[in-house]
């Protein structure tokens, strides 16, 4: 039997090769065929999920919620000490120095990453801003957000913190961070679908010891992950409850 693995499209682009290496490594360890399918955007990935084509997924918290509660997926591991955090930034020479300085009609540049956008909007609430009183522009990547800010087309942008930190020193020097989230409890999670349930225990066991297995640490490094921590179903349910409180 052949299984299909996918990765939430919000991972940093310089880790693409790492996920292919991981897939090869995992196939060797398990002795099975796994096809890695990477999607350019969230919509294409969700369509594949709807068609039941996905067996293993490194999911962002927003999709994990839907996959666990509606599609019968099970959480097995999460990356160690790597929460999904969000940065809201403005141009370095902007008169905006804090979230409370923002006014209605603020121009926001963002990607279509659902977690980043949700957390970002929550961090705009202290300025009484919401989807109805800001002007939003969606772009494909975080570097394009920075460009929209530099060119004066956007006042602020939402960045996944990992992506913000991977921007070049020059780009970051042109930006100022207005606020950076420190939520800690919201993370990406590796989930196993109902069709691959038989593999669940074996994959979990391998991944929890991955750093000690042959070539394991090198593969982890290539994905930008230090190691995997166990994610019980109740841990995942707790994260989903937390996400539920943040969605109106």
């Amino acid at each position, binding site marked *: 039997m052949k299984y299909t693995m996918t990765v939430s499209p919000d991972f940093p682009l310089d880790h693409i090769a790492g996920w292919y290496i991981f897939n090869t490594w995992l196939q060797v360890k398990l002795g099975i065929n796994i096809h890695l399918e990477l999607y350019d955007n969230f919509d294409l990935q969700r369509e594949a999920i709807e068609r039941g084509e996905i067996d293993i997924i490194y999911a962002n918290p927003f999709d994990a919620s839907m996959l666990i509660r509606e599609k019968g997926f099970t959480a097995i591991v999460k990356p160690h000490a790597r929460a999904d955090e969000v940065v809201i930034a403005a141009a370095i020479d902007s008169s905006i120095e804090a979230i409370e300085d923002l006014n209605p009609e603020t121009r926001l540049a963002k990607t279509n990453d659902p977690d980043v956008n949700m957390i970002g909007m929550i*961090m705009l609430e202290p300025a009484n801003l919401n989807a109805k009183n800001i002007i939003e522009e969606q772009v494909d990547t975080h570097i394009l957000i920075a460009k929209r800010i530099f060119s004066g087309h956007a006042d602020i942008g939402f960045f996944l913190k990992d992506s913000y930190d991977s921007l070049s020193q020059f780009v970051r020097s042109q930006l100022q961070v207005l*606020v950076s989230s*420190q939520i*800690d*409890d919201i993370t990406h999670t590796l989930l196993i679908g109902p069709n691959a349930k038989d593999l669940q225990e074996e994959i979990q066991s391998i991944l929890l010891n991955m750093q000690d297995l042959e070539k394991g640490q090198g593969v982890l490094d290539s994905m930008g992950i230090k190691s995997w921590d166990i994610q019980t179903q109740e841990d995942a349910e707790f994260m989903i*409850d*937390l996400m*539920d*409180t943040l969605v109106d």
Partner: protein
Amino acid sequence: MKDMQSVDVLEPYTERQIQYHDGSERALLLKDEEVPFPEGKLIVSRTNLEGMITHGNYSFVEMSGYEEEELMGMPHCVLRHPDMPSAAFKDLWSTLQRQEKWHGYVKNLRKDGRYYWVYATVIPNIRHNETVSYTSVRRKPSRSKIDECIQLYAQMIQEENQT
């Protein structure tokens, strides 16, 4: 619940008595000093069905002024500030009992007598169609909403005292 202790609260403070929904009372020591909500953070806690605290993240513990060991097993109303009208909490509990989500602006009391404002969302944690606990997540509120609530809650308390 133990009365607030003068050793925990710097003078000057005001003494007040609060009565909870179960009729029990507690002596409070209140300071007119707000602690700002920590930037970028969420305050997360969980209680059992009886409202006893079973989990709190770092921000929850830090903002409460208590030690984590003190908070675990305590009733969540240890954080209740007397400037909050009873009607707000009645609405919270009746909403949760319908297995629905509750939102509201809440003034919380710290161990040191100071206070902090939050925008709170509380949900029932439902497993196999049954509520097993409650999760509360608080985020930074806007100042204008707080100002509206200060007036509204004062009016509600006045009405509660008249009936």
